[in-house]
């Protein structure tokens, strides 16, 4: 299969054929997968056409949102409860994941420790918070503590992975310097690694907090505290104006937290990038952050 230019009869290079064939194959595969998936989902034309209409209908019925009623029922408090849950959960995750990350980074930890810890992170990350909460509720009982724990444990996985990557991206010069003074491994971590990673790790924590606020709202749906339970109960009664109120309040709080957190994160990274000798660190911070966006779970 020719992938480079070959000379045709008129002396001009012939167009490469290999890539075109590959693309066609992948395209066909894609079409097949899609077709099979759609049929598997019982998507009929009238359902497809009707769905936007149904959704729009519900959306319409949410206006005007029943704010007064919601305030009476204490929905605002519930929304803030979700924030508290996310805060405590993120804190638990952050404090537990950082020491573990030192054990998981390739440039500072030996292989026999590094591999199990990384696998631990992977396993934890693979379990959605909802499932964790389901498992925890019989033990802790219903309520926000189950939610906070579920979020906390799950965050250990994600935050651990991000922190490990941050550690692996540092300048190792200071590490050598600490070793040369006769310092122990722990001192190397404290003085050689920690100052370099603290800005990016802190912004990782804040970013995770933003995601966790949404997660804790969702956890309310199975009784782990927060505003999710409100949403479910109002939906069951088909009390759409109330649903609208809940949604709107959640959106406002989430947006507010997002904005503040993003501003703080920007300041942290900018402040950290000041050091002239730190250009590499600054770029890597940006790179890690871009990687973070959209890592929803």
């Amino acid at each position, binding site marked *: 299969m020719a992938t480079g230019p070959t000379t045709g009869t008129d002396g001009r290079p012939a167009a490469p054929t290999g890539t075109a064939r590959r693309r066609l194959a992948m395209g066909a595969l894609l079409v097949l997968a899609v077709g099979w998936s759609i049929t598997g989902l019982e998507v009929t034309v009238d359902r497809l056409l009707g769905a936007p209409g149904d959704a729009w209908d519900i959306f319409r019925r949410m206006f005007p949102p029943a704010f007064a009623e919601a305030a009476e029922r204490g929905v605002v408090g519930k929304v803030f409860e979700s924030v508290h849950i996310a805060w405590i959960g993120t804190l638990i995750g952050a404090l537990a994941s950082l020491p573990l990350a030192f054990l998981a980074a390739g440039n500072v930890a030996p292989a026999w420790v590094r591999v199990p810890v990384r696998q631990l992170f992977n396993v934890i990350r693979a379990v959605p918070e909802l499932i964790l909460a389901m498992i925890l509720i019989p033990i802790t009982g219903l309520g926000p503590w189950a939610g906070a724990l579920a979020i906390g444990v799950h965050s250990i996985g994600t935050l651990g992975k991000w922190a490990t990557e941050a550690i692996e991206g540092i300048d190792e*010069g*200071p590490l*050598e*310097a*600490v*070793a*040369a*003074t*006769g*310092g*122990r491994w*722990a*001192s190397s971590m*404290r*003085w*050689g690694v920690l*100052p*370099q990673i*603290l*800005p990016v790790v802190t912004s990782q924590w804040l970013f995770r907090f933003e995601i966790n606020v949404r997660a804790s709202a969702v956890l309310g749906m199975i009784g782990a505290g927060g505003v999710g339970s409100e949403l479910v109960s109002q939906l069951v009664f088909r009390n759409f104006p109330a649903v609208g109120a809940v949604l709107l309040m959640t959106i406002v709080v989430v947006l507010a937290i997002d904005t503040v957190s993003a501003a703080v994160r920007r300041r942290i990274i900018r402040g*950290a990038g*000041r*050091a*002239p*000798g*730190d250009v590499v660190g600054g770029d890597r911070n940006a790179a890690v952050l871009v990687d973070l966006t959209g890592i929803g779970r």
Partner: protein
Amino acid sequence: MIRFSDVSVTYRGGVQALRNVDLRIDDGEFVVIVGLSGAGKSTLLRALNGLVPATSGSITIDGTEVVGAQSAELRAIRSRIGMIFQTFNLVNRTSVLNNVLMGRLASVPAWRSTIGLWPATDTEIAMQALERVGIVEKAYVRAADLSGGQQQRVGIARALAQEPSVMLADEPVAALDPVTSRQVMGDLRRINRELGITTLVNLHFLDLAREFGRRLVGLRDGEVVFDGDIADVTDETFRDIYGRAITDDDLLAVDDEPTG
């Protein structure tokens, strides 16, 4: 006294960086080591404090064997050897004083250094080290906010804070401009004379070597090809060590007049 006896270092890839090196360095000497890149200068210094393990041979400092020393023993040896680096290796985000205090890590209890609660005696030692290199007024400035020459002096202060008997300098001025380079080399020479600390300096620039060195060791392909007084050194000597003619790149400053 430092003694290298038939020391060889082979890296894991198979590259042999040092071959059968024999050296004897008395207390208080100021030794300049020259050679092409890859000739083994860095390896020689790092073998001395165990950052690079020697494959064979023996290295002793005042009778203590470095080769094969493990953890606590090795750390004890290192605490008596101060090292400064071409890239300074400072902790950029923290203060100059904290950087210098890192020289006290080996003698301060772990919990104290972790929290940053350094004992007063160690802070005093750090301050004195800063005074000795002349930048104590920058003690609380962020290390990254200093110029290159100042950063290297912080590095020297950090090494001094260890109260070492040996000072290793791995191309300490390669990243600095000519004027600053001379200042730093002058500091190293002054410290050697005033405190009597045995000093080994890797240098890339041959005019600096001739100007500041007392004893010259020339390395080529991991072997010692010259070891003698700086007074006996000629351009011919350098050509032998380098195995080629000297170029302008090997000299710090072609047009400037050497000062001091």
